[in-house]
């Protein structure tokens, strides 16, 4: 244990040292000055594809390296991401950028990534936010949670306004996109007793399956000990066409979702 603590302390000191050294120039702005600049985004795309995509994937959704389309949604900041690209992550494959890489180039790559991740200026909300929240409560909150309120079968949407562009949300809500997210695929388990469990699949392997059932109980099942496991590689999210959600309600809903940028302690 002492060894671990000592190693941790040394690592902390080393990390701190790196931080001090790297902060010395302090010239880099704390927010990306090139966000929304089409030329910068274009240049950033080229750099991303040649230098980063090998590990993070052409669509930045992650291969060996993590998914970069979710980083702002998960709370990272421009400043923090800039530092990660500049310094790398010691002890991992993420390298520091070389001395010849300019701050401007890093901001260009981040500006490009932002186009994959976050709403842009053209996403200006046009609907009624209060009405949109009512729509959300009526239609979505059974499965989706915002700031600790709502269901858990679908992804938590507390930061969706920072995470998804309006167009992507429309496609998902209207069911135009055949996509799924691991952890949210519908699963039906028939026990030997005949009892049927429905829910979403949180994890699985050859021998077991882990679910959040429709009553929001998390539970694992051994495949040999149940009668049947039905799995489908689709999203459990239903399609809301205009008969279920009018254009006006959709517009209001999107306006409300655009305001969700993080956990809001005021929501009771």
């Amino acid at each position: 244990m002492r060894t671990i603590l000592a190693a941790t302390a040394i690592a902390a000191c080393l990390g701190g040292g790196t931080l001090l050294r790297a902060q010395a120039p302090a010239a880099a702005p704390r927010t990306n000055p090139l966000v929304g600049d089409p030329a910068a985004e274009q240049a950033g795309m080229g750099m991303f594809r040649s230098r980063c995509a090998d590990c993070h994937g052409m669509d930045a959704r992650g291969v060996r390296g993590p998914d970069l389309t979710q980083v702002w949604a998960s709370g990272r900041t421009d400043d923090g991401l800039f530092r990660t690209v500049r310094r790398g992550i010691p002890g991992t494959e993420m390298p520091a950028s070389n001395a010849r890489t300019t701050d401007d180039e890093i901001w260009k790559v981040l500006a490009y990534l932002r186009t994959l991740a976050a709403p842009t200026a053209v996403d200006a909300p046009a609907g009624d936010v209060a009405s949109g929240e009512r729509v959300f409560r009526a239609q979505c909150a059974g499965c989706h949670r915002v700031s600790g309120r709502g269901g858990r079968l679908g992804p938590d949407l507390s930061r969706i306004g920072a995470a998804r562009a309006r167009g992507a949300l429309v496609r998902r809500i209207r069911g135009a996109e055949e996509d799924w997210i691991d952890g949210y695929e519908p699963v039906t388990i028939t026990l030997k007793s005949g009892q049927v469990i429905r829910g979403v699949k949180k994890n699985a392997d050859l021998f077991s399956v882990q679910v959040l059932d429709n009553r929001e109980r998390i539970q694992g099942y051994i495949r040999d000990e149940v009668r049947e496991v039905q799995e489908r590689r689709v999203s459990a999210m239903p399609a809301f066409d205009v008969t279920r959600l009018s254009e006006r309600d959709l517009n209001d809903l999107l306006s409300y979702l655009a305001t969700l940028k993080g956990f809001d302690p005021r929501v009771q």
Partner: protein
Amino acid sequence: MRLTLPRLVTLAALCSVVSLSAQQPPAAPVPGPVSNQDILKGLDTDGANWLTFGGNYENHRFSPLTQITPENVGRLQPQWTFQTNTLGAFETTTLVRDNVLYVTGPQNVAWAVDARSGRQIWRYRRELPDGLTACCGLVNRGFAALGDKLFMVTLDAHLLALDMKTGAIAWDAVLENYRNGYAATLAPIVVKDKVIVGVAGGEFGIRGFIDAYDAQSGKRAWRFYTIPGQGEAGNSTWSGESWKVGGTGVWVTGAYDPEQNLLFYGTGNPGPDYHSASREGDNLYSCSLVVLDADTGTLKWHYQFTPHDVHDYDATEVPILGDLTINGQLRKTVMFANRNGFYYTLDRTNGRLLVAKPFVQTTWAKQIDPQGRPMLEPGHTPDEKGETTCPDLTGGTNFWPPSFDPRTKMFFVTAREACATFYAYKPEYVPGQRFTGGAQQVVNTRDVRPYGAIRAIDPATGERKWEYVTPTPSRAGILTTATNLLMTGDGEGNFLVLDSRTGKLLWRYQMGSALHGTSPVTYMLDGRQHVLIPAGTSLTAWALPAEAR
């Protein structure tokens, strides 16, 4: 008694021994020196040792031990678990000698571990510099041993000799400058008085090589560049100056044929990985099997699996040597399941191709012509728009070791079924920076998703005999035994024991992390057969209880 000076010295020495032993815990097992003869024996029925990467020079990963059987394997019990307490996962093959385990881990930490208790005897930790360029994980694949020394390569491209009893550095040789993209991760092998290693960095514009170092002094004995220099045969297979930064690393251990005194090593991808126009030509000796004289490093022959590769199909898989009857004739062969999706059997005396057959879905080529060259399908050169090819970048298999059962003449491989869209861009070479010229996107849709399979292949024909499918691809190596056990893992952390005759699942255990790039090893300890499983950051020893043996 008169106390003369020599007697005083003796007494003082004795006192210090007595006082030391009073303070020390009970003596740890004492490792004996490793001889060339010990290594040549491979995994014999005595079974107390595992002294070289593949178990034997031929890389069979086949143990003659018989205590654990299909009938009793389900009664295996954990004996102890060793944790690395470091970042990163094991890819190592543990060496076993006289009740002591010699283990390399991630971040170039290494240990001697008491095989009876799982307790550390010593620990070596390398102080790694900033700015490492190791492509694909800060990993290490194992030690080699000779005499009282262990040999380990490092992520900053050195070769170290460590004292087996203390873990102290006996010598430290520089392979190349890590700042220019060189790294090293493979397990060395010892041949006679030399330590054989290779260098990684195929994604960083290196010029790859295989080196031999004198095991006593650390002095370099020879170097074989995997890319011929100017004026040498093969150099013209690289357009312009591209040979200077053509990659072709060697990051997986090869085989050694004592009878011919030849080394067999698979070589890595040419660089930049995906951008064809940057390096027109066959790009020798990338994606090849190179066969070298073990004393001099002279190239005897080569076979290029993937001429002018543009999909990162390194031939850095583990070659296996074995004798097979093919069309009624006994042949000395080298067997090779390649990342490009083809399984190959070559005559290891002359390089003649005997068998070549896809063992997974391949779309870039469907067959190999009689001259041994792949017959390319059109439309599989990556560009800015992207083209889809099977297998994907990770390949039909990869560096995780296969196994060969010399009794049944069966070859076992962990296969992957996956396709990817490959993109290419013209890259600029900057020393020490990634130089791949593109990327891939794995095809993963509702209808098409990657999966894995453990496959048994008849190496005399390339035919599949059985398969055990896993829902996601596995990166585990394979160990087989004389009791028809096949030990491996799936992609979800399950340790799997299959019947090597049929592929039937006999036993499983969820290790909590997948076996990655390596297989278990097995050995006898105090009359009990042990199985040592590296998974994630843990190493767990298993054996049967007395009543089950």
